[in-house]
């Protein structure tokens, strides 16, 4: 075995050890720093080694993924039912209210609680905001400069991590309100003469 290949193999195994031991995603810059004493590794080499490692995990129960705050190893979703049996308590299901509020924050951030209420048509309870805050999925990023200085919310890197995505742009797009022209036509029809309303 030549030395380069041997070094490469060692680097991949060191990376694997770090990802196995870490309890949070590790960014490439941190990996480079952690490996420095043993490996002359720069970001490019680490990224190459991560690709090798990911390929090696193809047949494993775990997978190497990149999320917002770095790289991590995770047990594949195909095993979720099995893993759930390990834990006594299943993770609590998110209520529709929590999910809708989160979705609005995701796609409209930064925004105030009153903006969320305007879209949902109901008041947003402190509980809902606290739940999202508990998961560390949202944070206050500022205050709107109006009386009362309401807090403006946005999503956190942790939200991206937990939903397994690297950046907001990777999220499915917000479904469009069909084509705007159809909406406008509908609006125009509505403000036109009555009778189009097929009342029953």
């Amino acid at each position, binding site marked *: 075995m030549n030395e380069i290949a041997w070094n490469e193999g060692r680097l991949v195994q060191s990376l694997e050890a770090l*990802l*196995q*031991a870490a*309890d949070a995603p590790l960014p490439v810059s941190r990996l480079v720093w952690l490996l420095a004493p043993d490996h002359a590794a720069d970001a490019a080499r680490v990224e190459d080694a991560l690709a090798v490692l990911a390929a090696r995990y193809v047949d494993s129960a*775990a997978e190497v993924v990149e999320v917002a705050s770095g790289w*991590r*190893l*995770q*047990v*594949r*979703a195909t*095993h*979720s039912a099995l*893993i759930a049996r390990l834990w006594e308590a299943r*993770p609590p299901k*998110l209520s*529709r*209210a929590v*999910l*809708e509020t*989160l*979705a*609005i924050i*995701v*796609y409209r951030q930064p925004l105030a609680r009153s903006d969320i209420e305007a*879209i*949902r*048509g*109901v*008041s947003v309870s*402190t*509980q809902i905001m606290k739940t999202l805050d508990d998961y560390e999925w949202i944070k206050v990023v500022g205050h709107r400069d109006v009386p009362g200085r309401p807090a403006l919310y946005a999503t956190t890197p942790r939200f991206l*991590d*937990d*939903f*397994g*995505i690297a950046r907001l742009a990777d*999220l*499915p*797009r*917000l*479904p*469009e*309100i*069909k084509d705007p022209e*159809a*909406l406008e*036509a*509908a*609006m125009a029809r*509505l*403000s036109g*003469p*009555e009778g189009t*309303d*097929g*009342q*029953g």
Partner: protein
Amino acid sequence: MARPGFWRRAERRVVDAPAEVDSTDAPIRVAGAPYETLPEDLYIPPDALRVFLEAFEGPLDLLLYLIRRQNLDILDIPVFRITQQYLAYIELMEEMAIELAGEYLLMAAMLAEIKSRMLLPRTVEQDPEDEGDPRAELVRRLAEYEQFKAAAQTLDELPRQGRDTASLAVALPALDVERPRPVADIGALLGALHDVLARAELNTEHVIERETLTVREHMTRMLERLGSRGETRFSELVTTSEGRLGVVVSFLAILELAREALITLEQERAYAPLTLRLAGSR
């Protein structure tokens, strides 16, 4: 009409969701028959209506349901009919003295206004620019809400760490360094509890009872001891070295454990020794 697949999928789910509501038969009969012609003897349990209402996230959600149930497009809403149906629900709920959230009443007022304006003959000289049709604003809000309702479902379907994927918990080799531990600040801990108590008092009547910590501590200790043995005698759990107060506290702890169904108490006959067993351990 050509639509992106995503939208169509979401739409179908929107129709599917309230199907659960359909299975509670009573409220649907209300919707099927206009409220005005409701037979006098038709009894709808208020509870069923309450369950029905709880299935919705708010007035927009309820309106969307009424529209989707009839396979209509939001852009094609027969506003008059939907308004009537919505108002019928709200009136019925009020009749049944079901407390309605303010938002439902606000929407009812808005719909009532739309209805009355539509009943009025249009004056020819009315400037169409002068005020927008309130129906247009309603359609815009419904369309926007439906967007996010679909987006929420899509979010929920993404694989989530902790629910679908799991973090690795590989054991570590013996290490020279110990992991740094968080600073244990008793002030921060009590401050957090103060906040919880303040919030709990605001929200509900669910307040932590004034129970002494000593009793709770004894409860924990007894469960631990029972955990290692499965069962034990009452006398063995009571430490006489704690004095008379200790015995009383132990006794209170046992009563509390029994009340919370954490242990079972057994006695073969009167005056025989009491045996304590972990609940469900046999």
